[in-house]
């Protein structure tokens, strides 16, 4: 019996050996080498296009299934019912008993889901992207669709996930090792050059490990030395996305464990700003260190996320004014993720970091667009808060994100009476007859109309 199995044994070993070699060669050729040089074969874009076609097909099937059973497919809600239309649109609008319905409906809508919490939960999609976590029409799936979903699971968890995890480890490992090596060089142009190259290479590998397909717009506005780069924040991945296209000095708290190792290695190659936990509370110290860094034009631009918390990428919350007080040029950057391929938003109250990374790496892809906006400086007579709002509005406009008044930290203050008054004003104007429309008022109030934010890629 034993001698019978021997040939099979060695055959299996040989096959395994060959497949591993092939695997690693492919990895090297198609992913790591292009990452080093910053070129791309275009495989990821092809992948993205095929995925889109697949998702459209899946949604059509579900719609057909829903129609057969005579039910409604629940789609993201965009009832643009305006105050003007809901009242009788005659020349002389009069009060009608039904006018109360408008306010009643809006009130109940806000009970079910208010604008602020909506910003904090993952965006809801029009079509299904074959991920159970984003499907809301469970009972409309046919067997064919289930089979497709099953295949999708196999591909994502069996093939893509191990591939990505390998790449991630490679990327991080190389980052730590190479930055430490570069740190041994004497300070000078050579060191800076090497450090840039090393950082870029490792971040590019990390980008590939997430299968992130990024489109950069307006690269001529890329942040320069001595400036501060400001971007909206959706997930921890934002850092990797920006840093794979340019070199920045990172700002953050000193962590322990693996993150700490990475931080210490990075700072050997080029100056990053890491704060101890105790130092973070001292605003003057923080501001001083940032100003000192910015004043030295040989140092890289600082990357800061002023929102301070992860928003779900449909809006830009209030920017904290600290980074705008420093007084150097600000380079705004808008990042917008395409939610069809994978939800990049990190709801830190629901998921831990490891869980989140697992989600990320088992999605189809992360597709996003980055817009570099022209640099802005604080104008005469403008204080930090106004400057911050100006930058925020520019970012929101560019990325197609809604500009919200609410503070990302959700301060529990009393709602200003002025908001209620504005609503009353609105209603009275319609009643008494005026040319104001709801959209006009919304723009003035900085109050978003209820409509899904669409991305164009």
């Amino acid at each position, binding site marked *: 019996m034993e001698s019978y199995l021997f040939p099979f044994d060695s055959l299996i070993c040989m096959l395994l050996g060959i497949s591993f070699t092939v695997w690693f060669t492919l990895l090297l050729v198609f992913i790591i080498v292009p990452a080093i040089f910053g070129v791309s074969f275009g495989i990821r874009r092809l992948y993205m296009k095929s995925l889109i076609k697949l998702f459209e097909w899946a949604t059509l099937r579900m719609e057909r299934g829903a129609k057969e059973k005579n039910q409604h497919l629940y789609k993201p809600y965009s009832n643009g019912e305006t105050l003007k239309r809901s009242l009788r649109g005659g020349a002389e609008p009069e009060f009608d008993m039904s006018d*109360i319905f408008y306010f009643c409906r809006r009130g109940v809508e806000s009970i079910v889901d208010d604008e602020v919490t909506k910003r904090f939960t993952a965006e809801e999609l029009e079509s299904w992207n074959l991920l159970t976590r984003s499907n809301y029409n469970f009972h409309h799936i046919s067997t064919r669709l289930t089979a497709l979903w099953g295949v999708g699971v196999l591909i994502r968890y069996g093939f893509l996930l191990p591939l990505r995890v390998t790449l991630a480890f490679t990327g991080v490992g190389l980052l730590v090792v190479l930055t430490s090596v570069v740190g041994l060089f004497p300070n000078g142009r050579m060191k800076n050059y090497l450090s840039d190259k090393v950082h870029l290479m490792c971040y590019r590998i990390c980008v590939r490990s997430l299968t992130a397909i990024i489109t950069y717009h307006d690269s001529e506005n890329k942040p320069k030395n001595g400036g501060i780069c400001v971007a909206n924040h959706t997930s921890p991945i934002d850092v990797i996305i920006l840093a794979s296209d340019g070199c920045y000095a990172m700002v953050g708290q000193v962590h322990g464990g693996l993150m700490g190792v990475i931080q210490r290695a990075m700072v050997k190659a080029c100056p990053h700003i890491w704060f101890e936990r105790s130092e973070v509370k001292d605003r003057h110290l923080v501001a001083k260190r940032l100003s000192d860094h910015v004043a030295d034009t040989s140092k890289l631009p600082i990357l800061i996320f002023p929102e301070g918390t992860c928003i779900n990428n449909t809006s830009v919350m209030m920017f904290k004014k600290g980074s705008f007080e420093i007084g150097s040029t600000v380079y705004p950057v808008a990042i917008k993720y395409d939610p069809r391929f994978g939800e990049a938003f990190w709801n830190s109250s629901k998921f831990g970091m490891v869980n989140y990374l697992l989600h990320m790496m088992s999605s189809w892809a992360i597709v996003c667009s980055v817009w570099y906006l022209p640099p802005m400086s604080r104008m005469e007579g403008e204080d930090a808060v106004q400057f911050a709002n100006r930058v925020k509005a520019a970012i929101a406009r560019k990325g197609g994100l809604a500009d919200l008044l609410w503070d990302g930290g959700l301060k529990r203050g009393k709602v200003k009476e002025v908001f209620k008054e504005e*609503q009353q004003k609105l209603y009275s104007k319609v009643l008494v007859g005026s040319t104001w429309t709801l959209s006009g008022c919304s723009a003035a109030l900085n109050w978003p109309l209820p409509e899904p934010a669409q991305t164009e890629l």
Partner: protein
Amino acid sequence: MGSTNSTLLKIPNVEVLMQETGFSPAHIIRLHDRFKALDKEGRGHLCPQDFGAIKELAMNPIGDRIIGAFFSPGKEMVDFHTFVKILAHFRPVDKDRPKEPNSPELINSRSNKLKFAFQLYDQDKDGKISRDELLKVLRAMLGMQVTEEQLESIADRTIQEADLDRDDAISFEEFRKSLEKVNIDHKMSIRFLR
């Protein structure tokens, strides 16, 4: 994210709830999540302050009346079942559902939607909207933007048009009649997401 079934099992009498309100399991779960999010202290029921913390509701001119609709007289707490039942008023009407002759009236029927709106006007719950109550609602919706005279003339005109039995108040039947032509389903329904 966990199976939907496990969340459903945690809710007591969920079958009855779905039957009475017509919400799908996905909706119930969504509403349950929302209920838990509003119930910040985790007491298992909501009080008026929890509703008051919703900024958009606080901004709404008739926000207090809407909150009042959730709490029956004397009660200071709303449990999940009551919460869902009241929100069920705002479910869109199922157009394709056949009318069973002996089944109890659906919560989201036209008549029940109208009753919900009626109680927003009729705060003392005497079955009639008096001139005074109408004035109060108008004042809430218009604030300081119109004068007292304008308010009174609007109220007078409305009562004149709707009050058929000339008792200077609008009963539910008169209310219903004046809104005959209005698409209640459209105005008093919201799409429940997820």
